[in-house]
């Protein structure tokens, strides 16, 4: 039973993945207050950590080319344990979706349109996302390269415009943070934007080009990582010791752009870029949670669960945490523990069990 019939090409998959990871790019503040001007090192460590994991994630879906993670769980872990693990995934998808929704709403209500309750933005956003799912996720995949292109344009142009205000000495002294903070930060980066790519195990059945899945995943990963490095470099070089206290370093850095008094007030670029990327990211999460719930309940068409899940995620978004500070603290402490299992332990175990049980059977491999 394959719910989604839309087809995504390998290249589109790569860009979708890139845009998905980039979705957290302008909200990196959750790490900058830990790792300060050594964020780039933490980023480097995170990328190194995630490289083998990318292979693990997508080797799973390569092994089961026509199955999403919910189906794979059933097959690998059997009926009952599989269902329990699937439930874990479903809860994860839903909660992360709500967190991202809230982040975007918070961004809007604190910078662009003040005095507006966060819920307004999440409701409208989820409505647009519902429309997307109604039309099919492959439409987003086809547009993904435009999103990534726009993000790159914004990142590179703002970086060039901030060139005069950069001070490379802001990076000195290298590695000035405590090891504990550094590990925490690196793990946060690895787990928050990067390891979230586990969500793509819901999408891979719709991808055409199964053979080069891992290769395309690496393409997406590198596309995203390059832009991460640019942003982290730019923010630290421009903001220096102020970076750790700012709620959104990317936004504040861009507000400083001033080229001959004409190219000023470029904040809107960040607003647009952030909205597009978060939209892409939430689209993938929403799709994953909708499809996984439909799969879990054995529905034939996922469209019926779009509306209830949309409502649920809006409610969750307003109930999950009260403020961004809450979120930051929660993210830094508890989130890690709860997601670590899912992101870094279960996938290798899945692969291992599949190997031990010699799954999938021969016929399946041929396909």
């Amino acid at each position: 039973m394959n719910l989604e019939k839309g087809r995504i090409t390998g290249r589109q998959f790569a860009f979708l993945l890139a845009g998905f990871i980039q979705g957290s790019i302008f909200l990196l503040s959750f790490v900058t207050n830990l790792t300060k001007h050594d964020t780039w090192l933490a980023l480097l460590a995170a990328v190194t950590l995630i490289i083998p994991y990318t292979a693990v994630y997508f080797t799973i879906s390569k092994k089961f080319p026509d199955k999403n993670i919910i189906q794979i769980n059933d097959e690998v872990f059997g009926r009952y344990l599989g269902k329990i693990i699937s439930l874990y995934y479903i809860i994860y998808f839903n909660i992360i979706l709500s967190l991202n929704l809230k982040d975007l709403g918070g961004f809007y209500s604190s910078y662009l349109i003040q005095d507006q309750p966060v819920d307004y933005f999440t409701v409208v956003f989820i409505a647009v996302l519902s429309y997307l799912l109604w039309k099919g996720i492959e439409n987003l995949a086809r547009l993904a390269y435009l999103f990534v292109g726009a993000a790159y344009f914004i990142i590179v142009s703002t970086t060039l415009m901030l060139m005069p205000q950069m001070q490379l000495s802001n990076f000195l002294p290298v590695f000035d943070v405590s090891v504990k903070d550094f590990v925490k930060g690196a793990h946060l980066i690895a787990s928050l934007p990067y390891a979230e790519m586990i969500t793509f195990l819901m999408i891979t059945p719709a991808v055409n080009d199964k053979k080069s899945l891992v290769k395309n995943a690496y393409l997406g990963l590198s596309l995203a990582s390059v832009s991460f490095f640019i942003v982290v470099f730019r923010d630290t070089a421009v903001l220096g010791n102020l970076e750790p206290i700012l709620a959104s370093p990317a936004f504040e850095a861009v507000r400083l752009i001033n080229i001959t008094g004409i190219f000023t007030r470029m904040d809107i670029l960040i607003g647009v870029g952030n909205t597009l990327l978060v939209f892409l990211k939430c689209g993938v999460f929403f799709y994953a949670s909708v499809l996984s719930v439909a799969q879990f309940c054995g529905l034939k068409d996922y469209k019926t669960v779009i509306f209830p899940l949309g409502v649920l995620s809006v409610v969750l978004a307003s109930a999950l945490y009260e403020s961004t500070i809450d979120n930051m603290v929660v993210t830094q402490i508890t989130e890690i523990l709860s997601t670590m299992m899912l992101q870094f332990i279960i996938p290798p175990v899945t692969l291992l069990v599949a190997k031990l049980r010699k799954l999938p059977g021969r016929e399946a491999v041929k396909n």
Partner: protein
Amino acid sequence: MKIKPRLLLLCLCIAAFTGFSGCLRSTEISDLPLTLGLGVDKSDDPAGFKIIAQIAKPSQLKNPASGGGGGSSEPAYANFESGGETIFDAIRNLTKMIGDRIFASHSEVLLFGNGIAREGMRDYIDFFLRNPDVRPSAYIIVTQSTVKEIMDLKPLLENVPVTSLKRILKTQEFTSETAKVTLIEFTSCLMSKTKSAVAPVAGVAENGGKKAAFISGLAVFKNYKLAGTFNRKETRGLLWVLDKIKKGILNVPKKEDGKKIAIEIISSKCKAIPEIKGTKLRVHIKIREQGSLSEQPVGDDFISLDGLEYLKQAQADAIKDEIMSAFNKSVELKTDPFGFGELLHKKYPKEWKNMEQYWDSLYPTIELVFDIKTSLVKTDAITKSVSPE
């Protein structure tokens, strides 16, 4: 039959989108109190400060000549003062007078009164950085006396006092005797444990019987508090080391009679490299400067190899002199506006840990080692001096 609920849903979405947004902050531009500058000054309130907002009157700005009666048209701005227990409280209290919340996104200048600066900026800077309306690129200015004096002074050329201040700040690079300091730069220094924040100083001068505002020199802060001010010369000395010199006039004396020769700085590059040698702290200051001969006393001709050599040397001496005076003043004020401490921190992170707490006593012992190379690249429109052959 399935159509109806879906249509209903669509209508619901549209209604929600537009209906909810009824409480959005949508304001017509003509209704916005466009605040061009904000000032904080001392007052007799228990809280000890008041806030002054300068709000533009666009219709007056549009055509100052054709407005109202000839000559003395109404000013294009209005100042509102208000007190409160906190800055934000004071700013919201302005609403009672103005009729709407002030719109501070366009206030490109933040003025702090002398009294406030002397007392300490600690309590006042947080709001401006935290509030998303205020731009982090707004310029900080410290006034010589009260803020009110500067903000009430109608400029001779411009329409609005703060706009005129901003214009003056923008052109500081022609003299390099003061500096543009943005809110974010200022805060960045406040957040450093050793580096002292600086801010340009605005004052009022007589100008042919009329008063005019000017900006010159820098106020130097120590631990949020105003420690003292640098004069023109000391400011330039500081800017040399911070590598912020763009243009400016170096007046060097003639050897024989001490008459001044004006050399315009065309470009300058500076690098300050700290060094720990045993127990001694050294900072190497490496400057590469280019100047042009812009004015000289009639009669003497420097267009010779010897003359050029002299001028180069004189420039180097002048630069060194300026830097030394700045350094001495900073020692006197017990501040570190050069950021030597930060430089050491970056180059010697391990040693720095021990030095940090003694920095105040270590700072005066720093030895400045100069490596200044200057050149005279042009003599402008005439090559020889004006003198009968």
